[in-house]
């Protein structure tokens, strides 16, 4: 246990030193008998700061260091490497947080903040003085990754991983890949149909030969930890051969007597019970058994190729890492929200795009030509004022609406009039030029105040919108339109939330997957070995989703190339001498990591370190304190909490 300790108090420029008197803190620490050296450093994380520590460890033969600086979330790894470089066990270092949990929250109490820093450093020294050298737990990683979700982000992750020679299983519950982009008629800013973008991406993925694609497959269960994630799948049968002859398929589709609303197009078109891929990927047809009446028309054409009672296939596989790219789902307005559900002439933007895409040369709704379209922005986003749950901005929507406006004018002619009821336009980056163009192209922009949003009421075959235009002295403005389009925001997908729950991945307040750090660790989650890509992490456009998906691949491959990962050695140990064989810990352990073993004629607890998650639940209920969580032992915690705030030098002697 360390007896020659070095203490380093960081200024963090002015971030800490403007509030905390770092020189005093260092001086105070120097009074502790075990402390050999205590210094204040301008930036502990800088090259120079690190060198000071390395030199001290070597020259003064330090056997442990305390660094008082920012949150360990940021630089724990940095300072561990410092210790390692100097030949010290990297767990003989303790980080004390005097920035996030001190200087930044007590800016108006400099004296209190300085005293607090002194005490926190004191506690850190107490902890270190009872620490032992540790070795991380090594876990082998095989080159197998599970990517959940085959939207643009998941496809990109799969492609980038496969290019590195890593084997990928890409699972999507949908029978066709591409997520939401597949249904976009005109993807901004490339201005191509989404299904083309997806088909390109898909063929590149397939050509790597390294990706197993499981579309139309449910991920029933997933459990485990880095290196050993077990997933159970259910591949839903399509009831018809994948490679069925195209011409015969078209005939079967023509002859199939069942017709239902096509969900791909929100019911603006109809489809048969036998469904053809229609430019979607993978190019496999299926029979929708929910609606099929088993009339036998297709069976007569395909014989054995059609099987109504083919069963789904369940199977299990193991992976070393998981990428969650489960995407988003569009916000669905409540009944009566801007007239939605009350008049059919109020649509959401996703619905409107399908209507526009499936219309011929003229835009027709309910048998009438559409001339005037009113867009209402920020529906289901930025609900701070309305008390709704979604307080965030969905990012994609302003630009997508401007793009939609120019797309319909391109497709149906400029006779279409558009009205934009907006709160703010966030056409960030180069998209600002689109806003400029839309304003020039006689689109009318009316700025509404969230306190008095536009009212929407049906008026025969038209819809009336009334609002106060906050840019023209708050006068009431009335617009009559053929269609109202609600520009709905993005929400985390329900299936995605279920996956996060199964993997124990934390979500942010908004329900999206929480990244470990927005800048420093943007694709890592709170669970080791689980990465996140695309809109599962938060609203993004296609381009941003692909960047994020590629980043997740890069992060995964750095680990996989090494072939192993190291886990924190913070697991529970047993003192067999103290164990009284009560077996309570066995039941308390949530991971099933404890069992009873025979030792010198009696039963004692034994912990499987590969399974122990390090929660310490067992240790808390162990009567004789035979179980200790390494890194957080009760002797350590007691020493920390009984550390006296009195001047240290005097107290410890």
């Amino acid at each position, binding site marked *: 246990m360390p007896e020659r300790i070095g203490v380093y108090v960081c200024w963090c420029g002015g971030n800490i030193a403007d509030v905390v008197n770092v020189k005093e803190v260092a001086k105070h620490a120097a009074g502790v008998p075990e402390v050999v050296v205590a210094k204040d450093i301008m930036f502990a994380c800088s090259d120079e700061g690190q060198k000071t520590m390395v030199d001290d460890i070597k020259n003064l033969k330090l056997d442990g260091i305390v660094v008082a600086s920012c949150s360990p979330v940021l630089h724990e790894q940095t300072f561990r490497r410092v210790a390692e470089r100097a030949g010290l066990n990297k767990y003989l270092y303790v980080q004390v947080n005097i920035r996030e949990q001190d200087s930044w929250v007590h800016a108006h109490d400099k004296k209190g903040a300085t005293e607090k820093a002194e005490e926190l450093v004191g506690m850190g020294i107490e902890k270190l003085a009872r620490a032992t050298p540790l070795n991380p737990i090594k876990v082998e990683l095989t080159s197998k990754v599970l990517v959940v979700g085959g939207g643009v982000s998941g496809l990109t992750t799969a492609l980038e991983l496969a290019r590195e020679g890593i084997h990928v299983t890409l699972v999507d519950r949908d029978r066709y890949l591409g997520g939401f982009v597949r249904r976009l008629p005109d993807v901004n800013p490339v201005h191509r149909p989404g299904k083309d973008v997806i088909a390109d991406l898909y063929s590149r993925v397939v050509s790597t030969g390294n990706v197993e694609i499981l579309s139309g497959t449910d991920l029933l269960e997933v459990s485990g930890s880095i290196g050993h994630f077990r997933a159970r799948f259910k591949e839903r049968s399509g009831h018809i051969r994948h490679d069925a002859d195209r011409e015969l398929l078209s005939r079967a589709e023509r002859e199939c007597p069942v017709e239902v609303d096509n969900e791909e197009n929100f019911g603006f078109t109809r489809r048969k019970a036998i469904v053809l891929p229609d430019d979607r990927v993978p190019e496999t047809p299926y029979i929708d058994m929910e609606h099929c009446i088993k009339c036998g028309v297709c069976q007569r054409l395909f014989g054995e190729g059609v099987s109504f009672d083919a069963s789904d296939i369940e199977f299990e596989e193991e992976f070393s890492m998981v990428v969650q790219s489960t995407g988003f789902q569009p916000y669905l307005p409540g009944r009566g929200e801007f007239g939605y559900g009350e008049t059919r002439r109020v649509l959401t933007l996703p619905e409107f795009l399908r209507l526009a895409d499936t219309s011929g040369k003229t835009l027709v709704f309910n048998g009438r030509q559409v001339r005037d379209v009113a867009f209402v922005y920020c529906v289901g986003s930025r609900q701070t004022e309305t008390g709704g749950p979604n307080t965030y901005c969905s990012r994609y929507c302003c630009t997508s609406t401007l793009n939609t406006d120019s797309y319909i004018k391109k497709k149906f002619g400029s006779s279409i009039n558009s009205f934009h009821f907006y709160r703010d336009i966030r056409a960030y980056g180069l998209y600002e030029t689109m806003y400029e163009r839309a304003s020039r192209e006689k689109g009318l922009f009316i700025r509404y105040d969230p306190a008095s949003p536009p009212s929407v009421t049906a008026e025969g075959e038209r819809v009336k919108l009334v609002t106060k235009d906050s840019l023209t002295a708050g006068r009431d403005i009335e617009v009559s339109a053929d269609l109202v389009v609600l520009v709905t925001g993005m929400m985390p997908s329900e299936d995605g939330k279920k996956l996060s729950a199964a993997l124990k991945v934390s979500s942010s307040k908004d329900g999206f997957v929480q990244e470990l750090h927005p800048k420093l660790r943007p694709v890592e989650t709170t669970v080791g070995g689980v990465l996140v890509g695309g809109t599962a992490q938060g609203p993004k456009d296609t381009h941003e989703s692909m960047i994020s998906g590629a980043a997740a691949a890069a992060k995964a491959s750095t680990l996989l190339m090494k072939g192993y990962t190291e886990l924190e050695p913070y697991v529970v140990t047993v003192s067999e001498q103290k164990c009284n064989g009560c077996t309570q810990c066995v039941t308390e352990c949530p991971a099933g990591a404890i069992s009873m073993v025979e030792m010198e004629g009696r039963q004692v607890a034994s912990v499987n370190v590969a399974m122990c998650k390090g929660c310490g639940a067992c240790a808390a209920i162990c009567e004789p304190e035979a179980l200790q969580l390494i890194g957080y032992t009760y002797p350590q*915690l007691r020493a920390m909490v009984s550390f006296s705030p009195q001047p240290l030098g005097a107290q410890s002697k």
Partner: protein
Amino acid sequence: MPTENPRILVFAGSMAYLGADNAGLLHKEYPSNSFVVKVPCTTMLRPGLILYALRHGFDGVFVASSGPDCPYLPDCVERTAKRVESAYDLLKKNGIEPERIQLAGICSVCSDAFANNVKQLHSRLKKLEPMRRDGLLVSQ
């Protein structure tokens, strides 16, 4: 005699610790006489440890569990609540006011909740007599 500036010990689970960091990021101020000790998960807290802290210099203990977001235990809240209940009993047995313990679930972005809980406990402790710092050793 009320306590002038109560000393608060915070046991923070890993998500709650991030919540405290988040309060820092957003500069949410709270009393400086409060000290966070990080634990992976608050279910590891022995009731005796809480009593020990009160006997050795703290006027109150805030158990900041990671709540439903706990990466270790889905039922972290229930289990932590059990620990805290036993701690209440232990305190009562030792003639110490149970309101010296505060329990809350703090998520990784719950900056306001973190700061408010510290403030709340601080003002509640102010109304109590100061803890006697007799340093009595307790079992466990």
